[in-house]
């Protein structure tokens, strides 16, 4: 057997994919050829190193989480997908979608509460000025609502009650409802 012929069989030899006859012939050549033996060692070592690539277990919490996520995206999402509209969301889209729903629900509840709360407070300043002074994140969306759709969605009276109510209710988070309220109340005087 020539070295060239051996090299063509060498990988199958290392992988144990050769017939018994070929195996014996390769083995015989390797015993007496240092060059081919070096090549054999190199392939064997490479396979050994690749086999040792570490596998890491991300842990039980991950396995439970990922199977729940998969079921949420398949079995539990199926009625939506079959209802005529194809709602195909990947993980991040799904998260964004849920966040948008929650955020919309929170906004609606704040607006409704604000309309009620605002009904008893007197207000002299124009709404836009008040809104501009309001150091709350929520004021930006309110400005859009009040200015851009002036009169078209809600009446001016309702706008005033809304802004007053918001000032009493404050933001839903930890931005600090209490430090903000005195600030706002001064704008009423």
């Amino acid at each position, binding site marked *: 057997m020539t070295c060239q012929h051996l090299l063509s069989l060498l990988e199958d030899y290392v992988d144990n994919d050769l017939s018994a006859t070929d195996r014996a012939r390769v083995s015989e050549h390797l015993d007496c050829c240092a060059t081919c033996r070096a090549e054999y060692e190199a392939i064997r070592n490479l396979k050994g190193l690749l086999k040792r690539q570490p596998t890491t277990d*991300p842990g039980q919490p991950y396995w439970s989480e990922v*199977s729940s996520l998969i079921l949420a995206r398949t079995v539990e999402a199926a009625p939506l997908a079959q209802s005529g509209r194809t709602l195909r969301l990947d993980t991040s889209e799904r998260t964004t979608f849920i966040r948008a729903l929650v955020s919309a629900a929170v906004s609606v509840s704040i607006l409704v509460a604000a309309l009620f709360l605002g009904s008893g407070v007197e207000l002299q300043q124009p709404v836009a000025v008040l809104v501009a002074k309001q150091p709350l994140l929520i004021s930006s969306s309110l400005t859009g609502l009040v200015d851009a759709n002036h009169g078209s969605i809600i009446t001016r009276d309702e706008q005033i009650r809304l802004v007053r109510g918001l000032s009493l209710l404050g933001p839903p988070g930890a931005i600090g409802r209490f430090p903000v309220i005195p600030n706002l109340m001064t704008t009423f005087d």
Partner: protein
Amino acid sequence: MPKSIPSLVERFTSGDESAFAELVTRFQKKIYYLAFQMLGNHLDADEVVQETFVRVYRRRQELRNVSNFTAFLIRIATNYAIDLLRRHKGHSPITDDQSSLPGEIQIELSQRVRTPSDQFEDKVLMLEIRRALEMLPPRQKITAVLHDVEGYSKAEIAEILDCPEATVRSNLHIARTKLKKVLKKRLAKRK
């Protein structure tokens, strides 16, 4: 009593969704480890696991004609991994290596080693091999991972990649030749 894979697949295709849940539990680790070896980081492996099962679910009607569910599953995972590798082309996803792994994995890895110098030497070597694998084109890399890391036979890989066995053999040969070249010193040093 554990149910056989074919009977679970049969139940799943007939509309029993609890069978799908069980298939997910049975196969998620296999897919994750395979994807981790192909892509080298937790985030991509996680994406492959989720996407693979979502695709299997959507393609459940095809399962009636599938004789080897495991090969079908691994083929979907592998194709998605190839897509990710092509998308990542040009920037290596392994630069952050272990920093992207959850804490538990890092602890597990550190417990596996004997001495600090052993640990360091071994980590460097494993990282070198991962870098070398990283440089291969997707199909060569995946063939090498399936065969030499995961231990699949050439016939199984041909089925997974839907190509002739000769293609597997030649991709494996080219991958190994490149790896040997890059890791030359490392391979010569070892006894």
